């Protein structure tokens, strides 16, 4: 009888790997291949190749991998879970390894070996994997290998969120648009992957000793390896990159089969089993996009009617207006005649270099127009607005929403609803009385809409146009759900597992994007809610499959201008014309043809030293010597003096709060540490007074920064909790560093009862985070961390809790009782100080004719690391900022449709009610990403405001620093207020 070999087959999300080992466990054959979603075919092909090479061999076999599960079940082949397979291979090859990290196409895994074997995989919400790296490379317009090369030449790292690809994109895009070096961005992407692995997977366990790095990305990308080694502080001896890393799991499953397999097959037989595997058809199918080709043709014909008139740029002479839309992934430019005829259009992926694209096209325009055309004015909109304006001397800047409305009303004067799906954003706005009434933008988490299809098309080996065309006549479009793109990724994976064709997936993706827009962004219950005359635009709608999906979902026909992708630029041009006419401008200040010849710029990074925020600045110096600075929150960073004194209560509150800890007792019993996080942002005056009166020295943790977050990152057990809670971990570390004898952090189910609500709870996170810290921060113990459950409304109870908690300091009941009374007074004084300062700001604003924004959130939103300087952004727009807790006491609670049972949230409803009574006030709500309770409050606050004719603006904030989306919303709010 011939020798028995063992065949391991690893079918992953992007690749198929096969390994043959002999009976001694030596690898005699291995192969690694991308499957481009043709899972079954690729697997079969590889096994057939083996059959040809080893026609007479006998194999034991096991299948592994995320896509292997379905295949193995359907084909009747043995299956082994991939992390387990890796574990088997590690035991064989590297018995002395302490830990292993494996990054795959869409999974990230970690195996701890010494000190208790533990195997972990990323949760369902996680980027930081191969697919994430591919996506980022696509965004930069390069391959993953190019990105690797670039990363080795980096000089500076930017913080990039890697928790999910969509988040990271919103971090990277503005960096690109501001002209940051691609080398630095490439390295930052890799660093983000490392941070994600360390925080998301290790969750409190230290990765140390001899560490094994497995999987495709880690074996191909040198920059990634370097980042891991540096972050984990590993030398060459302790960081091991096995040669067979990409096929490691396949090898593990071969070993597993050798050990446990009871059946043998010829390679031929295995290939046949794979071929005949009938995947269960459990994916749900959606509606077909078109029943027939005729239907499609009628559809095309109908949409053809909405086109612009053209005029030849080569013969036209006269005035013209320039419009530029420097969007997130693409740059669009148009040149139009005064009557709106199109002279020139350009739509191109900017590959992270918007300025280069614009200058190149301007040169072309100048060449084409000769001296026949006079450019009267130009306007620019989009993410790159300020950069292009500064660099190319474009006359006006216009907020995107306004530009889009200008363009839409050109095609449909009665338009009442516009939806624009671009590369990265979904923007929707309702129009009432010919003005923008309400704006809906996608949250940071579900952006990446258009570019998602593109990335996906590329991953499957198609270009975008070809890919979407495939979906038009799909027989059974798969239903992929309507969530963020990361989830869609795994839905697609499942569909592939179940044997869906590329056509079905293409159609399914189109329909998903629409569902996401309609039900997640617009949150519509029915199509009628949107409006009668809908205009759709944005590059993504040029895709017929997406357009058709929208019409099917809405149940009505819509207008898609043929220049759907250029609407922002077209609107900007129309805006330029309008402004020029108002200002009687006759010639644009655009960079001249001769200056363009010598145009060049250099980029430099710096940190602003204007205030504690230390904004990371990108400074572009142009060949004529003038500079453009970006990345700044306020005017200071831009090298300008602060604009007239626009007051903000945020700074006052923050300083007022922190100032209370300056007072210390002459001699202290001990140092009590209070972490500057969550509830302490309001109760600090209370606890400081209490402990100071009782003879303790109160120390607080450092002021939050990104560094604080990194300090505690390794002890965060839940990566989906809100950012303010995550920061708490760093504040605990900070207190330990500062030498607190004891850290006091009470659990408070109940907050202060302020009346007018059904109950006065804290949210579960604020209430119980101390318990979580105690359970997860290893250096905390009963001695140095006191977290009693306390309700500060109840004096008798509170006094006895404090007495017991600080038993060893021998506090008397009467002393605590007195301290408690003083503590209440301190809290009340703080609150009334905030209120009177609020009044002062209102009076000042009214005297100076400034609109007032009630920037509402929770007490901890005053932390500059949490609000990312949004308050400064608002004051820079010339609006005064006050807070919800400065005004809510002026009114009683309005009638609500929800259970009103949280103290902080009850204030929001009252503040909203108050705003409706003040003509010069608007409310902007800050929402921390992942705050489940705000899923309830936001709808209610919106309802209170809109029912009384106010605008509702919501800003979602997370660890991301990018204020791009916030800026659009706020500027649109200004535009809407101005009418």
């Amino acid at each position, binding site marked *: 009888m011939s020798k028995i070999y063992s065949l391991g087959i690893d079918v992953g999300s992007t690749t198929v790997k096969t390994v043959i080992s002999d009976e001694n466990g030596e690898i005699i054959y291995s192969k690694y291949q991308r499957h481009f979603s043709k899972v079954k075919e690729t697997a079969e092909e590889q096994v057939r190749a083996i059959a040809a090479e080893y026609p007479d061999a006998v194999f034991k076999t096991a299948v592994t991998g995320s896509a292997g599960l379905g295949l193995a079940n359907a084909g009747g082949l043995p299956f082994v879970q991939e992390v387990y397979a890796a574990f088997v291979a590690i035991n064989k090859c590297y018995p002395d390894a302490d830990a292993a990290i494996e990054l795959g196409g869409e999974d990230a895994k970690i195996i701890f070996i010494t000190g208790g074997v533990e195997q972990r995989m990323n949760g369902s919400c996680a980027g930081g994997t191969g697919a994430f790296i591919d996506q980022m490379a696509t965004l930069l317009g390069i391959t993953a290998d190019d990105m690797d090369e670039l990363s080795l030449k980096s000089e500076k790292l930017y913080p990039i969120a890697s928790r999910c690809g969509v988040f990271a994109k919103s971090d990277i895009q503005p960096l690109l648009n501001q002209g940051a070096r691609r080398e630095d961005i490439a390295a930052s992407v890799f660093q983000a992957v490392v941070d994600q692995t360390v925080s998301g997977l290790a969750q409190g366990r230290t990765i140390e000793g001899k560490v094994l790095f497995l999987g495709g990305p880690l074996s191909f990308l040198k920059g990634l390896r370097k980042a891991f080694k540096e972050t984990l502080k590993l030398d060459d001896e302790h960081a091991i990159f096995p040669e067979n890393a990409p096929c490691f799991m396949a090898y593990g499953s071969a070993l597993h089969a050798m050990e446990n397999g009871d059946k043998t097959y010829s390679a031929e037989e295995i290939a046949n089993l794979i071929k005949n595997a009938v995947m269960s058809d459990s994916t749900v199918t959606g509606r077909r996009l078109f029943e027939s080709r005729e239907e499609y043709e009628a559809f095309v014909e109908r949409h053809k009617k909405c086109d612009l008139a053209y005029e030849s740029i080569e013969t036209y002479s006269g005035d013209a207006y320039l419009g530029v839309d420097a969007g997130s992934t693409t740059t669009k430019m148009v040149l139009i005649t005064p009557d709106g005829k199109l002279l020139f259009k350009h739509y191109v992926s900017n590959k992270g270099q918007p300025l280069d694209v614009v200058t190149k096209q301007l040169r072309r325009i100048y060449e084409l127009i000769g001296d026949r055309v006079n450019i009267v004015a130009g306007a620019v909109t989009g993410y790159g607005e300020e950069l292009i304006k500064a660099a190319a001397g474009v006359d006006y800047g216009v907020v995107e929403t306004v530009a889009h409305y200008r363009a839409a009303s050109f095609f449909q004067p009665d338009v009442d609803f516009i939806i624009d799906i671009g590369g990265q954003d979904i923007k929707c706005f309702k129009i009432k009385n010919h003005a923008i009434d309400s704006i809906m933008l996608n949250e940071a988490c579900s952006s990446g809409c258009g570019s998602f299809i593109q990335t996906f098309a590329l991953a499957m080996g198609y270009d975008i146009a070809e890919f979407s065309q495939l979906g038009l006549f799909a027989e059974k479009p798969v239903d992929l759900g309507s*969530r*963020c793109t990361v989830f869609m990724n795994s839905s697609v994976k499942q569909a592939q597992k179940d044997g869906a064709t590329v056509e079905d997936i293409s159609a399914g993706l189109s329909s998903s994007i629409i569902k996401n827009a309609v039900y997640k962004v617009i949150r519509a219950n029915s199509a009628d809610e949107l409006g009668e005359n809908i205009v759709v635009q944005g590059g993504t709608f040029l895709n017929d499959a997406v357009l058709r999906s929208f019409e099917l979902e809405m149940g009505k026909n819509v207008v898609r201008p043929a220049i759907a992708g250029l609407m922002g630029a077209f609107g900007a041009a129309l805006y330029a014309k309008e402004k020029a006419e108002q200002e009687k401008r006759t010639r644009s200040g655009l960079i001249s043809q001769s200056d363009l010849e010598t145009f060049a710029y250099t980029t430099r990074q710096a940190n602003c030293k204007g205030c504690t925020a230390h904004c990371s600045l990108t400074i572009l110096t142009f060949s004529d010597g003038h500079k453009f600075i970006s990345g700044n929150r306020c005017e200071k960073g831009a090298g300008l003096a602060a604009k007239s004194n626009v007051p903000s209560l945020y700074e006052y509150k923050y300083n007022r709060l922190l100032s209370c800890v300056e007072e210390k007792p002459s001699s202290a019993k001990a140092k009590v540490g209070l972490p500057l996080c969550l509830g302490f942002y309001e109760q600090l005056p209370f606890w400081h007074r209490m402990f100071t009166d009782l003879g303790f020295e109160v120390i607080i943790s450092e002021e939050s920064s990104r560094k604080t977050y990194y300090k505690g990152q390794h002890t965060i057990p839940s990566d989906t909790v809100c950012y303010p809670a995550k920061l708490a971990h760093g504040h605990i570390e900070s207190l330990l560093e500062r030498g607190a004898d004891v850290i006091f952090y009470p659990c408070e189910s109940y907050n202060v009862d302020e009346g007018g609500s059904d109950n006065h709870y804290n949210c579960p996170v604020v*209430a119980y985070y101390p318990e979580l810290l105690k359970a997860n921060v290893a250096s905390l113990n009963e001695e140095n961390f006191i977290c009693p459950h306390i309700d500060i409304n109840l004096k008798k109870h509170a006094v006895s809790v404090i007495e017991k908690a600080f038993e060893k300091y021998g506090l008397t009941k009467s002393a605590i009782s007195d301290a408690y009374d003083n503590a209440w007074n301190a809290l009340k004084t703080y609150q009334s100080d905030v209120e009177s300062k609020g009044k002062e700001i209102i009076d000042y604003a009214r005297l100076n004719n400034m609109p007032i924004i009630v920037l509402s959130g929770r007490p901890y939103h005053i932390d500059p690391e949490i609000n990312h300087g949004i308050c400064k952004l608002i004051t820079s727009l010339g609006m005064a900022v006050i807070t919800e807790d400065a005004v809510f006491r002026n009114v009683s609670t309005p009638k609500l449709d929800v259970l009103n049972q949280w103290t902080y949230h009850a204030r929001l409803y009252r503040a909203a009610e108050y705003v409706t009574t003040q003509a010069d006030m608007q409310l902007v709500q800050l929402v921390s990403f992942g705050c489940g309770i705000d899923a309830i409050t936001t709808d209610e606050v919106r309802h209170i405001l809109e029912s009384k004719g106010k605008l509702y603006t919501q800003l979602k904030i997370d660890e991301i620093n990018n204020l791009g989306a916030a800026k659009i919303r706020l500027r649109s709010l200004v535009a809407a207020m101005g009418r």
Partner: protein
Amino acid sequence: MSNAVFTPEMKDTHTILIPDMLPVHFRLIASILDQYGYKTELLRNDGRSVVDEGLKHVHNDTCYPALLVIGQFMDALKSGKYDPNKVALLISQTGGGCRASNYIHLLRKALDKEYPQIPVLSLNFSGLEKGSGFQITPQMLFKMLFAVLYGDILMLTYNESRAYELNKGDSQKVLDKWINIITKRLEKGGYTKTKQTYRAILDDFAAVSRSKEKKPRVGIVGEIYVKYSPLANNHLEEFLLSEGCEPVVPSFLDFCLYCAVNNVNDGEIYGFKNKTTFTFGVGYKLIYAKQREMIKVYKEHGEFTPPHDFEELRHYADKYFHQGVKMGEGWLIPAEMAALEEGGVRNIICTQPFGCLPNHIVAKGVSRVIKEAYPQANIVAVDYDPGATKVNQENRIKLMLANAR
């Protein structure tokens, strides 16, 4: 917003729809409502359309259970099976500091546009939503307690028997038989002869021929709806059975006791006494005594694993978490994890809705200390969400199972 009131007359004309959370228990509870003249129907609609309706009508960042419960109602209403003028919807409300207390309001908002005439009934024991024609009398409440007790013994024993049965379907037959018997018994009162009934149930399940092979036992803990409802957890129990495991789902009574004792705890923690603490104190003792009685029968019988003793659960909780952590499933989750480990169930799946607030703390936040206390513990947290795919969830569970073997 829709705020249709359930008038006493509607008792005769309206069918009350009940969401599908605990398949066995809710059937028994529904039958009690029927006895008191209400017409009820337990919803069984499943699948993508339920999720889609949920997505349409609920804020997408709201937790998955709310999305499913509301989606299931809306899907049922749109199916055309019911006359919208002749139905009412029943939803439970706990009144805790978790956003779940808001489900009823979200449901009313969802109904607002299309079905403003449909009354929504609250099933709660905290005095919320007074003044409806739907009232739970003390006698009904007492009967429901028995429904929960019987539901628990049936669910627990059925799970334990089914994993090992030699003839597929035998355990199901016993279950169906007893649901019928108990439904009838509850009509007459059902408070007496409980011990004999327990014994008879255990005997019947013991008579099912079962294999002696050792299977990995997998405990299921987590958010209450996702933990029990097959609609929410993608038929987790069935999946575990198909993987050759025995699913161990702790009893529902524990959750009821947890809710009751939290009111008692509040008094102790915050140093006050009032009518609520007193009533719940008495209620807690009574229910706990009933649980003890059941455990005693189990132990005497000796064939099956009894439910956890609730006082023991509290004792476990104290080791790892303060009982003041009472929002959502609070301290119950760490307590159940510890109890499972103590009882030799090494493997635990913690089911939770994606982004569930209390679960950050009481589930993911606690697994470190549980693993420290029980180095053998094999715990996986699985997120459920309209976008989370089954393959992703199953792959993670498979990893856990690979470690279990």
